Structures are given as structure tokens and as C-alpha cells.
């Protein structure tokens, strides 16, 4: 990918998304999304519902194949299905789902190390030890390892979801609304924990959030999506108050018709 010479100093890009388009029937979920992120950077995606935020994440993690465009992750184009490379690519990415999507058929520790057990990279006792270690990282007691996910509270399930997402020590962490449905104290705690984990491991983080404050203060970059397109993106420090008001208004679901783009503010989603 050739980087536009005018923008920003050149650092190697870890994720490069170019013109990503995804359609479901006649509905266009993603319409030419561009994104560039260096290793260890963090990005918050905000936008109203049905903006395509979750679809973008599912394309990144390989649940959906792209209709057009490319996703280069660590040098590999992961946008087209590839059964042989799938486990290898997937191990570079950890994803936390909005509803956690923990497997109720398995215990907590089996959930956390499901991929290690099934792909045979660890035997069961190694996997259990690894899972218990990860439980410590997310602030859960060892005793919860043998429980069923349905025995846990919402906050605990979220922690297990995070533990599962980081179990393969992924270079990229995708978080779909990590604090949705949690009380403010707990969501602050979870956000802090994610920041700490990411900093310790040098993980690249992409997070969908509806909280403008969290997006501005905890993430280095911000991407605003609307109707499957990138509406605004850039380092969080460069958002001015007018933008902030506009974005906030948008998140509140402004009923004043389609939001019009402000001239000259869109920057093609290029960071770094």
C-alpha cells in the first residue's frame, strides 16, 4: 500500500484496511472503509447503531469475508477465507463480543483455552493452568475456573470474555462494546484493566464504544462511522469542540435527518 505522502510520518502499519466493502443482500453494511494502525496503537470506533462498526470488527477477525477491498494484517491479506491459514490468523486476534458469547456447554477454563484445546497447542492440564493464570490477570479467583459461565455475574462474564480474548497473547485485540451494560464503576474498572493489559503486552486495540469520554481519554485514535462509511477519523487530540459536539449529538441519535459531513475534515482514515 502506498501511503499518501502528505500525511504523518511513516511508521510500519500493522493493520491496513483499504476500500473494505461488505453487503448483506441489498444492504450495504460497509462502504469503502479505510483504516491504518501501527503496532501497539489504540483506536476507538464510535457511531450510531447500524453504522457498520460490528461488521467491520467481524471482517477483521475473519467471521465475514470481504466483498471488495483488502485487510492486510501483519503482512497477510486476511480478507478472503483461507481454511489452512485460519487458525494461525485467528491466533493473532482476540475478540470480546458484545454479549460475551461464552460457551455455556463448557466450563470457564475450557472457554478461556478453547482454541488451545481444540487446535492441540496445549494439553488439557497445560490449558487449565494457563486459564487459571489468565483468570488472575482479569481479577477472578481460581475457584471460578470450574464453574459454568451461566453461574457468573455479568461483570465476571465480561472478565472471562477478556481472558478468552487474550488467551493466545494476540497482537490485536478487538472489543465490541466492552463496557455495555455495566455500571459506571465497573466499566471504568474494566477499561482500566484493558488499558493495562494492552500496555503490558504491547497489544494493538480496536474498541467499539458509545462513551465519548472513554473514547477521548483512553484511546489514541478515534474513528467515527455512519452508514457503513468512515465519517471522521484521526488522533483523539485533534478533535476540536465543534467536532466533539457533533459526534456527541450523533451518538445521541440526532433526529435531524442525515448528518452532513463538514468540509475538509475527513482524512481518509490514515493514522500514524
Amino acid at each position: 500500500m502506498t501511503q499518501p505522502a502528505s500525511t504523518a510520518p511513516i511508521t510500519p502499519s500493522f493493520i491496513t484496511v483499504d476500500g473494505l466493502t461488505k453487503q448483506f443482500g441489498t444492504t450495504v453494511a460497509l462502504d469503502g472503509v479505510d483504516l491504518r494502525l501501527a503496532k501497539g496503537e489504540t483506536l476507538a470506533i464510535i457511531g450510531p447503531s447500524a453504522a457498520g462498526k460490528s461488521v467491520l470488527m467481524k471482517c477483521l477477525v475473519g467471521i465475514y469475508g470481504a466483498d471488495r477491498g483488502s485487510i492486510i494484517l501483519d503482512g497477510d491479506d486476511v480478507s478472503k477465507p483461507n481454511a489452512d491459514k485460519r487458525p494461525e490468523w485467528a491466533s493473532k486476534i482476540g475478540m470480546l463480543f458484545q454479549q460475551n458469547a461464552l460457551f455455556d456447554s463448557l466450563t470457564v477454563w475450557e472457554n478461556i483455552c478453547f482454541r488451545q484445546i481444540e487446535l492441540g497447542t496445549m494439553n488439557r492440564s497445560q490449558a487449565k493452568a494457563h486459564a487459571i493464570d489468565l483468570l488472575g490477570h482479569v481479577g477472578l479467583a481460581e475457584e471460578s475456573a470450574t464453574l459454568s459461565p451461566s453461574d457468573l455475574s455479568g461483570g465476571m462474564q465480561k472478565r472471562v470474555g477478556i481472558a478468552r480474548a487474550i488467551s493466545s497473547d494476540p497482537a490485536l485485540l478487538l472489543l465490541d462494546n466492552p463496557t455495555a451494560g455495566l455500571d459506571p464503576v465497573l466499566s471504568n474498572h474494566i477499561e482500566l484493566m484493558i488499558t493495562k493489559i494492552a500496555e503490558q503486552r504491547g497489544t494493538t486495540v480496536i474498541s467499539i464504544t458509545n462513551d465519548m469520554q472513554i473514547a477521548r481519554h483512553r484511546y489514541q485514535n478515534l474513528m467515527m462511522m455512519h452508514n457503513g462509511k468512515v465519517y471522521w477519523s484521526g488522533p483523539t487530540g485533534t478533535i476540536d469542540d465543534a467536532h466533539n459536539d457533533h459526534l456527541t449529538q450523533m451518538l445521541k441519535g440526532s433526529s435531524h435527518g442525515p448528518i452532513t459531513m463538514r468540509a475538509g475534515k475527513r482524512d481518509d482514515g490514515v493514522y500514524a
Partner: protein
Amino acid sequence: MSKPQNAPGDVRSKSLVDYLNDENVRAVLYQIIAIGLVILAGWYLVSNTLHNLEKQNISTGYGFLDLEASFEISETMIDYSAKSDYASALIVGLLNTVKVSVLGIVLCTIIGIIFGIARLSSNWIVRKLATVYVETFRNIPVLLQLFFWYALIPAAFPHPRDALEPLPGVLLTSRGMYLPVPLADNAYTLMGIAAIIAFVAIYFIKKWATKRQDATGQPFPMLLTGIGIFVGLVFLAYLIGGAPTELSTPALKGFNIQGGYNISPEFMAVLIGLTVYTSTYVAEVVRSGIQAVSSGQWEAADSLGIKRSVALRKVILPQSMRVAIPPLTNQYLNLTKNSSLAVAVGYPDLVSVSNTTMNQTGQAIEAISIFMSVYLGLSLLTSLFMNWFNNKMALVER
């Protein structure tokens, strides 16, 4: 609606009409009247029946069970002859019902799961074939299907003279299938006992291994050990029993085939008919169970790089079971109850034997009461087992 004259504590002026208007009095009164009517109707029916039976000189009671049955039954799982009593005849019928029901339940579950999954296949041909199978056999009355299979088997297979032999010793004829069986020998009883001992041993070793793994993390090769213990013990029992090798092989003698184990066309028709019919319902139950698991579970497994087949086995099917078990129970009960249609193709099930008994003794009420209680009992047993299984499998909702 408040009625001041009926307010609590007001006992001054209560006439009969006031009492009848009192909600509490009414509630009790209606129940007394309803129960009274039911008892009255029951008493009328019973006394009328007894009176009529007496008029026809028919004795009541279950004494006839000890009398000689004096009819033959074509397939029996226990020793039975025309000289046996009616009780034995009914037990033969019951065992035949249980045999076809249990086999039917096992087979329809296996076939149903396969077709249920196939209906959701991403392969167009597989999906359509499964749909055609389900929609065809689900929508034809099961009685007609029994007639069909019963008509097909004698027509499709040759006379015993020209029996087909697909495998050495296995004969296929218009009179059913013949299998070679080992001649009775003490060694086989011994092997059965050895198998039970092996299962008990495996159960306890498994318990110990799980406990040790939980405590120390040391895994134990349970599968290999289990197979080893089972095969080893059973083989040892075979050797101790003198390693009998004599087989009873089916062969043509005169006009019919003698020896071996005969699977009658009646039994095959009933088993195939019930299995095919019920498997379509099981397939639908399995399909709806799989679809009831949220798509997020597939996506989560996919995001971990897990193949769909593994996700289906480890994540989706176990969760769909909790939705599927109650309707599955219904289908098992239906199969057991539908097995009473076996009488239509002459398979000697409980209803068929009871009918003969009824015709010979005239004890219609008693015979019907027996097979109705037996079906009720079988169904309740099935329900109890499935409820236990459901409690074991069911997980608390998210």
C-alpha cells in the same frame, strides 16, 4: 366491586341468599357439586357395566391369566408355547413391544440427528435431499407407511429357495432376514458378567482419574485404559469359558430356512416404519434446537479459528440439547405408543396378543385395562428417564 353487606366481620344479617352470594361459600359449593357429579357418573358406568356383564354370564377379574393360552406366537424373546398361560403370552407381547420401541428410539435418534444437521447443511444437494426425506415421511400417516414396508419386503426379496446372501451366513428372503448366531454356551453368560464388571471398574477408574487431574493436573489415558480393560476382561471370560466357536447358521431345509436368528418381515416393517416416521420429527427437533442457539456462539467459535464441525460438536449441539430434550421426549412417547399399530401388519406386540386373548376369553375390559396400564407405565418410565436426562443436561439460561 365492593359489597358492604358482605364485609368481613359483618355477621348481623345473613340470610341463605347472602350465603349463596358469598364468594368463599360459592367456591367450595361448586367444587362439591363437580366432584359429586363425577362420582355419580363413575358409579353409574361401573354398576351398569357389572350389571350387563352379569346378565351375559361373563365373569370379571383377572383369573383368566393363569389359564392355558393355547395359541402360538410367531416371535418370542422368552420360552413360550401354546401350553403357556395367558400371563406369559402377554409378557411375550410386552417384550416384543419393548424390543421394537427401544430399537426404534435408538435408530430414530441417530437418523434424526443426521437429517436434522443435513437440513442446515451449506451443501445445496444435501440440504434438499434431507428436506425431501423429512417432508415425505412426516406427511404420510404412519399406519400407511407400515402397510407400505410390509408390502415391500415380501415383494422385494426372493423366495427362501433363492435367498440372497450379502454376507457369508446372512440370508435375505421374502420371509425376513436370517443371521448366524453362536450356539448357547456358558461362556457367553460369563462374558456378559465380565462386561458388567469392566463397566463398573471403568466407572471408578474414571472417577479417580478426574479427581487426580483436578488435584495435580496429571492427565490419565482414560480411553485406552477403558478399551483395554473391557476387551481384556471379556476376552479372558471367553477363554475361561472354553472359547466356543460353534455357530447356528441359517440354511435351506425343505421349503424353509432353519437355524440362525430370524428377523421377521413383520418386525422389519414395524421397525423401519416407526423409525423412518419418527426420525423425521426428531430431525425437525434437532434442526430447531440448533437454530435456537444464538448465532453469536458460531461467531465466537469462528473468531477463535475453530472449524464449524468442531464448533457444532462442542458448542452448538450440547446447547441445542437443552431445547431439544422436551420435544424429543414427546417423539419417543409417540413412537412407543405408535408401536401399537404393529397389530395392523401382524407383528405380535402387546396389542396383538391382547386382542387374541380378548377374543378367546371374552375378558375385553380386563385385557384392555392391562395394555392401557402397560402403555401408561412405559410412557411414564420414558418420561421419568428423559426428565432425569433433561435435568442433567439442561444448563441455566445465560
